């Protein structure tokens, strides 16, 4: 300990030695190459802002972004609703239920996103397990279009995102002082009122954090929409891929990536204004 008490200078040096390699690595291996790619948006095919002008004007690109945002928001809201219920029972339920929920969260978390997407395709497609059984039971006559459209994409993304939403919500719920709830009970509040007026407001930072985290993650989704969207639910990330590799339009591709990056940074900035980020961990 003496080393740290010897004054700020020395400890700062030690601190730097341990911490610096990570930012240095990120700058060299991630930030600089990324800047290189983003610079194409101003230089390819000719120097100027024409790629951004195109994004500002092109209706089909607007549709692309609206579709992406719509899917991300829908996914975020549904994921957070499901995750709230799971987190509630995970934190407050009896031990047996806690273990069950842990498994239900963690096992899908470990399965590859590709496998999960194909799993949903097999379940949901027109001649898949669910439709065949519903038809056999006489509940429906025509198969439901549950996949190869936006519904399918949202189902697949929610499945992927629920664990991401459970963790911040549960982290906040865990920090709620049980004595506050007991006090509410002591003051005569029923179980519904205790939840709505005490527990829910106290857990809101987790809910808001989870909404943002899921929305930000969803913005970059690529594989799930490509498989479950039947090629027709094109999101920004996939479109960037096509422009970069298929049609070699690097300027527009990197301009789209820049816009996406700004969206992500913007969302995280707003989140950091509303919620203390360290409480979500």
């Amino acid at each position, binding site marked *: 300990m003496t080393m740290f008490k010897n004054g700020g200078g020395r400890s700062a040096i030690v601190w730097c030695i341990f911490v610096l390699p990570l930012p240095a690595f990120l700058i060299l291996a991630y930030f600089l190459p990324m800047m290189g790619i983003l610079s194409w948006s101003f230089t390819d095919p000719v120097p100027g802002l024409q790629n951004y002008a195109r994004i500002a004007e092109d209706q089909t690109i607007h549709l*692309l972004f609206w579709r992406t945002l719509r899917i991300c928001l829908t996914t975020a809201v549904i994921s957070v609703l499901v995750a709230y219920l799971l987190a509630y029972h995970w934190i407050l339920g009896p031990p047996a239920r806690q273990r069950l929920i842990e498994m239900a969260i963690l096992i899908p978390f470990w399965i590859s996103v590709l496998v999960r997407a194909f799993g949903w395709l097999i379940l949901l497609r027109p001649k898949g397990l669910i439709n065949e059984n519903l038809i056999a039971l006489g509940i429906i006559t025509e198969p439901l279009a549950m996949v190869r459209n936006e519904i399918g994409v949202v189902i697949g993304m929610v499945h992927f995102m629920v664990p991401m939403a459970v963790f911040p919500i549960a982290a906040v719920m865990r920090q709620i002082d049980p004595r506050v709830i007991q006090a509410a009970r002591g003051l005569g509040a029923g179980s519904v009122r205790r939840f709505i007026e005490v527990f829910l407001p106290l857990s809101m930072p987790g809910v808001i954090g989870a909404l943002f985290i899921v929305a930000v993650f969803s913005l970059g989704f690529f594989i799930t929409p490509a498989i479950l969207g039947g*090629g027709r639910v*094109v999101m920004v990330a996939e479109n960037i891929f096509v422009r970069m590799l298929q*049609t070699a339009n690097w300027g527009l591709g990197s301009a789209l990536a820049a816009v996406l990056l700004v969206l992500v940074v913007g969302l995280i900035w707003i989140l950091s204004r509303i919620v203390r980020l360290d409480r979500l961990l």
Partner: protein
Amino acid sequence: MQKIMKDELVDILRHRFERGELGRRDVLMGLGLLGVTSLAFSPGPLMAQSKQLVLATWGGDTTKAIEEILGNPFGEVSGLSVVSDTSGPSEGAVQVQASSGSISWDVMLLEYFSSITLGKKGLLGEIEYDIVDRDKVFGGQAHQWGVASHFNSYVMVYDAAHFGDNPPKTWADFFDVEKFPGKHTFPKWMMGILEAALLADGVQPDGLYPLDLDRAFAKVEKLMPHVVSVWGTGAESQQLMLDGDAVMGMLWGTRAILVDRDSEQEVTFTFQDGFLAPDAWGYMKDNPAGAKAANEFIAFTQDPARQVELLRLAGYGPANPEASSLVPDDLKRIDCNQPENRHLMHDLDMEWYSENYATALDRFTALIAS
């Protein structure tokens, strides 16, 4: 230090490196001490890469077939070790590699129109037609930077069990959802389906190009409510047809013949009004193995007997007309380049795609998006 002395030391370093006594780092350090840049050392026999020929392909079973039928035998003849890079030489990927300055691919299996586009951009080496034979390709499909490697096709696949005695026969039938109701599928990469739409709309085959995009898009747009999925990969297209999620589709011929075989003709295909689309061999400008090796490999692939083997294993129609008569009877049905199949079909205009693909695909992607 005297020049001779220096050369002597460099030689010793090189020798010991080759015998494995010195590591790469030791050599570089030794060179540094001698004031010799490592550039002086490459691309001599020291660099292992120079004895390699890297084939850039697209992975899967076709890569295995290409290795087995072309890569390994060429390695034995030439003394080079032929290795595959299966990350896919798409236009963007080739451009990345060319602009990075560290070129690792030699010969690439390219989209034919990409070979034209990339060649015009100055990224590909020129085909040396004293080594490669220009006459050994159907329809003169060889240009300054690319040679047809094999032919694939875009054909109509339909659920024969579903349609019974009255199957769809033409692209007009394909687009006629009143007469032939059911879910459809086609490639999301656009090639082929625009031509099909125009034929269905009454355009004559010889009047297809330049494509009337507005007319083709309007026709495709009307079909969209009946499209279950636009496929991105061959495997996906196969699955859609085999599982019965679609009753008809436009598929690559290579996949159509697999669907036909796996379903025992319950889901089958026709070459009628299909579209012929070659892929192309091309090689990177300043490729590590050198232009001569690349051209020799391309010439090697023109061997008719090997092309027939490629038809057997990968379903690729031989590009060399001499191969047609060598195709055994049981494979003739699946060979798009057999004269009786070829005359049913039309050529995609690769020059048109080289000029217009990127802009047209943008509009097409917007059209098919839900």
